[in-house]
């Protein structure tokens, strides 16, 4: 079983719910590590249904957005589904400004997101 330093994982049925350890996702080294751990879920652990719960995340930079976009590509390439939930308004605005709210399937909360898989 892979060790995850930047992520906390729980299984709800077939869905892997991912929460973030860091409240602020901005440090370059942490973002690189975060990206590797997320990609590992898809490429090595072969998880098909991922829900990223942003409840604990207060801040993220465009570098973190880049990792999410790459993750989305990898999930789609593996025939999986990726959903996001519990994004606070300031961070949702970042997704809206960059129009990534159209790329990602974003739900209000975890229950909504789980029901939509």
């Amino acid at each position, binding site marked *: 079983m892979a060790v995850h330093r930047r992520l906390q994982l729980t299984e709800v049925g077939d869905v892997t719910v991912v929460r973030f350890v860091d409240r602020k996702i901005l440090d370059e080294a942490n973002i690189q590590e975060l990206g590797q751990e997320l990609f590992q879920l898809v490429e090595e652990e072969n998880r098909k249904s991922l829900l990223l719960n942003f409840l604990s995340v207060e801040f993220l*930079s465009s570098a973190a957005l880049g990792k999410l976009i790459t993750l989305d590509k990898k999930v789609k390439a593996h025939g999986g589904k990726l959903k996001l939930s519990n994004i606070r308004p300031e961070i949702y605005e970042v997704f809206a400004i960059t129009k990534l709210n159209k790329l990602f399937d974003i739900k209000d909360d975890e229950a909504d997101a789980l029901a939509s898989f």
Partner: protein
Amino acid sequence: MMRRTPWPAFERSPFGARILETNCGKAEPKTGKLAVATFSSPLEPQAFHVRHDKWCEMANEPTTWTFERTISSDLASGHQVLEDLLGRLQAEDWDSRQMFGIRLALEEAVVNAIKHGNCLDYNKQVHVICHSTPEKIWIKISDQGKGFNPEHVPDCTDSDHIDCPSGRGIMLMRNFMNRVEYNQKGNVVELEKRRGQDTPCCNGCD
């Protein structure tokens, strides 16, 4: 021995002197603090030609405080300077959304300067200066890189580029600040946030 790229402006005088060299004549600061604040640039004077009007405008405003640092091109130093500057701003009356936007814009600008401007070259430096006035904060971030043309950055909201993993930093800066301008060379960015005049929630989004 580590050899750094020299900055003539700093070698001459770290404070004050070059304010006299601007095109708008000798500025008369309204407060004593501004006299200490530097408007000199670590970059060549011609790089600032297009923005001298703004420099002069700022020179005639009372400054509450000035923050200035020069750092090496490593991201840890960049984040430390951001935390120090944001600590100053948190003591003021910015609301949480404004603070979020300022933090995000500064993060993007400083990381751009270190990573894309100076290419993480430890021999190059990044200069950060922030003036706080009763009306606004004004920040200038300068690197020693080749510069770039911000107009050539692809629009990542375009459907052809929506899945491009980079290129959103400038867009976020422009949405969360009231003014974002680059010099001609593209290695200096000025950011301005006016108090009590927030940017609209998500400019141009639907």
